[in-house]
């Protein structure tokens, strides 16, 4: 039985992960900002076999509150086996281009809040000498694209932070999994003109995440073919890349 905390628990991908862990009898602490939705998740996970579900309502953009939040979680779970960090927002790129304030706000929620939580959780886990930090970054962090670079920059920061954190915590028995989904059919992408054959279901991505957590993978591209796609995209010379519409 695992003790699992999920940040951004109401995310479609996180919800699908939680359903899989519930069947295994996990104990949960769920964090998100909509109380009613957390209650709906609680009922669902308990019905599916979760041993215990506690919820905390929090706006994760409020980094000042993170220390107290992590304290609450540790008091409930005693120790954390898995922390899944799933919250995120897809910025309106045009709005970011027009406003430095908006750009920073997007970096706050997609990068800084994640880094803040990771810093606190890393120390909790390192003290105990066990645990897995599973962090949802994105293939978008592999290379900044003209149409979506604010989001890409935030995810790149998260990915690089995780790389370093993994190396640091490895010696302490703590594992860091960086999850890089491609296009996923969730509320975040609803209405976007994505190429249908490349879009995965949140359930597919979740089953990859749950498996990668169990086997302690370092980096998970999900679905798997994104590893190849991104390898190619990274190889395109900058002189050409800047001319492409991506």
């Amino acid at each position, binding site marked *: 039985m695992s003790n699992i905390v999920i940040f951004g628990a109401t995310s479609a991908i996180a919800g699908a992960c939680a359903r899989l862990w519930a*069947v295994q009898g996990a104990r949960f602490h769920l964090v998100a900002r909509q109380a009613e*939705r957390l209650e709906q998740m609680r*009922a*669902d996970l308990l*019905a599916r076999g979760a041993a215990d579900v506690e919820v905390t309502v929090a706006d994760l953009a409020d980094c000042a509150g993170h220390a107290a939040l992590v304290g609450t979680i540790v008091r409930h779970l005693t120790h954390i086996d898995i922390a899944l960090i799933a919250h995120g927002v897809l910025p309106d790129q045009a709005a970011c281009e027009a406003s430095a304030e908006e750009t920073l706000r997007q970096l706050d929620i997609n990068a800084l809040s994640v880094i803040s939580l990771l810093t606190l959780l890393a120390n909790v886990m390192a003290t105990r000498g066990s645990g897995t930090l599973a962090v949802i970054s994105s293939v978008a962090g592999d290379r900044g694209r003209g149409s979506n670079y604010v989001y890409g920059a935030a995810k790149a920061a998260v990915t690089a932070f995780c790389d370093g954190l993994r190396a640091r915590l490895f010696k302490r028995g703590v594992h860091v999994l960086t999850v890089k989904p491609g296009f996923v059919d*969730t509320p975040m992408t609803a209405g976007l003109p*994505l190429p249908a054959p490349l879009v995965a279901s949140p359930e597919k991505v979740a089953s990859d995440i749950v498996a990668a957590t169990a086997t302690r993978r370092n980096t998970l591209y999900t679905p798997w073919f994104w590893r190849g796609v991104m390898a190619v995209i990274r190889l395109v010379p900058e002189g050409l890349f800047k001319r492409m519409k991506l």
Partner: protein
Amino acid sequence: MSAKRYSWGRYPRYPQTLRPVSWRDEVPVALNDTARAGTTTLPWGNGRSYGDSCLAASDRVLAMGGLRRVMSVDWDAGILRAEAGVTLADILALAIPHGWFLPVTPGTQFVTLGGAVANDVHGKNHHRRGTFGAHIRRFALQRSDSGLHVCDANADPALFSATIGGLGLTGVILWVELQLMPVTSSFLDVVSTRFGDLPEFFVLSEALDEAHEYGVAWIDCLARGRTLGRGIYMAANHADDTRLAAPSKRKLAVPLTPPVSLINGLTLRAFNALYYGRHKEKTRTYVSDHDRFFYPLDGILHWNRIYGPHGFQQYQCVIPTAAAHDGISAILAAIADSGTGSFLAVLKRCGDMPSPGLLSFPMAGTSLALDFPESKANQRLFPRLDAIVREAGGRLYAAKDAHMSGEDFRAAYPTWTDVEALRDPVLLSRFWQRVIRS
């Protein structure tokens, strides 16, 4: 997401744009938006209906699959309340380890609770348990004009019976409370018996249905003359071996749609001969897991693609008991004559348990279902079959239909006017538009 969806038969070809909902409170918002835009929509479960009853007149549907949370469950009483997008597969996986099973299940587990209610689906135990709707304790219905209704047989009885089998027209079902069925095992003791012709089918089903929870027959619809109606009858009961296992299974998939249909006279003849010929003994008994017994086709994902880009239609009718033998033989003869048809001819006796739903399909009698690759030949054959069904006092199943005439529908389902009176003004399907106007 931009993927367009078709109904299961991929005919008629009206690509549907999905507006997904993930939380219950998004449904009234979506209905309001639709009303304000002066247009219509239709709830979309999992698109397992074959024809046009799951296609919106506007080709814009409200996709309910994101509403897949269980709300409460009582494992002592076997009562489960879950959101409308929860699939039957999900329910089985949850319920079996606790000794509970679906009281009624169609031939695929990939349907949603909402879809199962809206078509009031039936299964291999119709002669014992009636339709899915007979096991619904209550449900919540969101309407664009009158808000949220929690309906059961006593509260809001009119809306309750109009919604069961209501084809998604009376409102959006948010959640369903279902009475599960206790079982001693998820495995089945199956008796399969070969029969040589139609009269023998009726004798067998008379004899076997009494003692078995489940009964269904597979018919070789290409056999003619003396062997017309030959097939295999499968009857089963849950075993009493206390094994409660949701088997994990490997799935095959048809990855893409081949340019031409793989179903033609030749492959069909070979398949049917093989299937029947392999059943050497008169009677065989074996133990099957529930997956293989109830959902043989679910093992091949996207099997509907084998019919190629033009898709296919399923023809399913039910003929009342008194006329069943003559009606079914006339239909089989007409099909054999046309040289088309499929390996999926299913014959099933329906019981006389009344359904709570107004537009429910089953009636006491015999139901026949089979698939036809889409082609001009169907336009000649189907009217012939329709005439036989009409004559016999039977009817067709809306969940499978893409062709029946408005006149036939209105005559076979006279209570359609009650459903039309309770229809939510922003909900309209291509099927409904077709059958109440033409």
